[in-house]
């Protein structure tokens, strides 16, 4: 049971953070399919930094610096999406897909360059990130994730920034007509998704194991996070709930054999399938009342009235 909670939190916090990133981007009006790629970039940057930090460094510094490095890398990578979508008005789904393909290739090239074994595997120590609370093993990403959740909610609904951001995704002409710089706001949205997605990528890779083969990227977690975002109707706390819901299935996939469910003799493939099937069912029921930001995916052109 504890194991179930551990894995659910582990995986759920990843999905939540990445989905929050996607949420910010889409609230500003930019569809971000590149979350998968951003996670990979964040993962490789964070892990690399981790391996390069001196051995004697205090744990909190290790955590701080590597997470910052990941976030930074994610933001820089997301600039590619921002530039293509906002300045060049490219198709956002195509741009996002391109960045996903590119990210895995970049990550593998970098990993192979720095790896000692010639493969794309990097080894690191994740001790600094783990701690135990009452018998439950957790990573620092869990409390970090919840803090980010609360900050996201406040930012989105209680600040001037959030109001303006949402206006840009719903009705950019209205925002423009009251003097808001839609381009700048959208850059902010995409950069936030870059930071959050990258931290999510690190949270996916670092806590469970001490070695990672970057050839697998992040195994579809970025896309699942997109589903979480839609399921959560672009609202922070709903996204948290959706993330945990999906995470339960994923952790069952890992540990089902050791619980009562082992009697079903379902392999991990079946558990892995379930979140996706569940999303489709939910989507089918909620599509009519979708709260998707109205102007998302449509490049904003000042000249059009």
């Amino acid at each position, binding site marked *: 049971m504890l194991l179930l909670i551990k894995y659910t939190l582990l995986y759920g916090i990843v999905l939540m953070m990445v989905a929050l990133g996607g949420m910010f981007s889409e609230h500003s009006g930019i569809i971000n399919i590149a979350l998968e790629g951003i996670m990979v970039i964040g993962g490789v940057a964070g892990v690399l930094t981790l391996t390069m930090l001196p051995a004697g460094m205090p744990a909190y510094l290790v955590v701080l610096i590597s997470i910052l490095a990941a976030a930074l890398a994610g933001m820089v990578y997301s600039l590619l999406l921002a530039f293509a979508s906002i300045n060049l008005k490219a198709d956002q789904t195509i741009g996002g897909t391109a960045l996903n393909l590119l990210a895995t290739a970049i990550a593998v090239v970098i990993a192979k360059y720095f790896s000692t074994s010639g493969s794309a595997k990097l080894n690191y120590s994740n001790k600094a990130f783990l701690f135990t609370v009452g018998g439950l093993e957790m990573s620092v990403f869990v409390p970090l994730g919840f803090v980010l959740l609360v900050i996201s909610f406040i930012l989105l609904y*209680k*600040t*001037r*920034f959030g*109001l*303006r951001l*949402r*206006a840009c995704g*719903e*009705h950019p*002409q*209205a*925002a*423009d*007509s*009251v*003097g*808001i710089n839609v381009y700048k706001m959208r850059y902010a949205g995409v950069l936030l998704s870059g930071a959050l997605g990258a931290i999510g990528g690190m949270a996916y890779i670092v806590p469970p194991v001490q070695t990672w083969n970057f050839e697998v990227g992040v195994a579809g977690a970025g896309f699942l996070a997109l589903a979480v975002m839609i399921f959560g109707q672009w609202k922070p706390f709903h996204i948290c709930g959706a993330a945990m819901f999906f995470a339960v299935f994923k952790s069952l996939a890992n540990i089902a054999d050791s619980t009562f469910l082992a009697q079903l003799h379902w392999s991990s493939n079946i558990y892995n399938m379930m979140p996706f099937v569940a999303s489709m069912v939910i989507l089918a029921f909620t599509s009519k009342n979708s*709260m998707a930001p*109205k102007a998302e995916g449509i490049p904003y052109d000042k*000249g059009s*009235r």
Partner: protein
Amino acid sequence: MAEDFVIEMLHITKEFPGIKANDDITLQLRKGEVHALLGENGAGKSTLMSVLFGLYQPEQGKILKNGKEVAIRNPNDANALGIGMVHQHFKLVECFSVLDNIILGVEPNKMGFLQKAEARKKVVALSEKYGLRVDPDALISDISVGMQQRVEILKMLYRDNEILIFDEPTAVLTPQEIDELMEIMRGFKKEGKSILFITHKLNEIMAVADRCTVLRKGKYMGTVDIQNTTKEELSRLMVGRDVQLQVNKKPADPGKVVLDVEGVTMHNDQRKKDSVKDVSFQVHAGEIVCLAGIEGNGQTEFIYGLTGLEKLSSGKITLSGKDITRASIRQRSKDGMSHIPEDRHKHGLVLDYTLENNMVLQRYWQPEFQKGGFIRSDKVREYSDKLIAQYDVRSGQGSSTIVRSMSGGNQQKAIIAREIDRDPDLLVAVQPTRGLDVGAIEYIHSQIVAERDKGKAVLLVSLELDEVMNLSDRILVMYEGEIVGEFDPKTTTVQELGLYMAGARKQGKESENK
């Protein structure tokens, strides 16, 4: 000149790729006056006001406020100078509340955190002072169009704007709401605010404006004092010649019933009410029947039901004796119905297809144009060339032009060519001349009358009362989804129609003014 001008726009030129929207225009606004800006579609009125509001930068010219030159690079600058604008297409965020929309861009805040309480107080005070009733917490998606416009006005007042620009404000209002708006404008005038008011409606200018500047095709035509002018003079300045206000046509000679509409009701799930209520009427061969009414009273939905784009809740539609209530769109087309749609870009054309592909949009499946599933491109080209010549449809590369690059007028002519050439028994024409200039309008009117003279039945839907009066043989007024009156244009007046359109009267029932 010792004039008391609060705003002067001097020799403004604004260009877009391929077109000079404003060509050396000068506009001077006196303090405390209501100044109308008149012109046809495409004359450059909205562009000029967008320059004043900082949405566009002019290539040449300068703007003065109270005699001093100012730079307006964005709406914030305009606001700082006290200039505000109510746009034709409202710039409101649907899922935000009234209050959020009003404060967007000038949010009161403490270190970035929103402080809505003081804003709310100010909004309530303003709405009481000027009689603009709103609920600050209502969502825009839930309130009426008239109320949405009030929110736009409050946006200006909240920012303490003294110079108020209204862009075609009455297009979406009922006659009663229009009167209310005129009162509100007079109220602003008394407070010393100056108003610029874009319109193409002569009646309103005569009713409320002090002076009027006329633009035509981007150029300045003149400024007149309303007291000293007439509608005829204004319209001459607007169009450049004496407008043929009458369409010459022989009297109608109606034959048998072509379209029989019985008890049609249509339900709108989103708004949870009937958009069309128990509508019944007939159209005979050789007559033009017009559905008149203010936009949003069920005409659009009815036409969708008639042409098959939407389902009816109840009722029956018969075309030339055949029951088509459940028929598919293709079937109705085959049974002799042609449809010139309300929105030429949404329904009428595939903009990224060539002109010839659009010309055969309703006929590509016929044996004349395909064999065994393969398109006969030579036949398609032949047909398209013929229609282009016959109906004078202009384009860059003839039949192979991509329709998106064509002008609105020529796009509409292409649709009309296609729909009329099919030789339908019933021609359904919805707003066929919307957004077109006078030359195109006259041409299209003559085509419609020609169809009727050939013995076809024509169902026309129009928002322009002049068009309604000129073209129709019979007028049916729709209000809130019902037919509230039937009229003969020869014996009725625009004023009478207006009363019915506003719901103040109903044939068979006299109801009080709402």
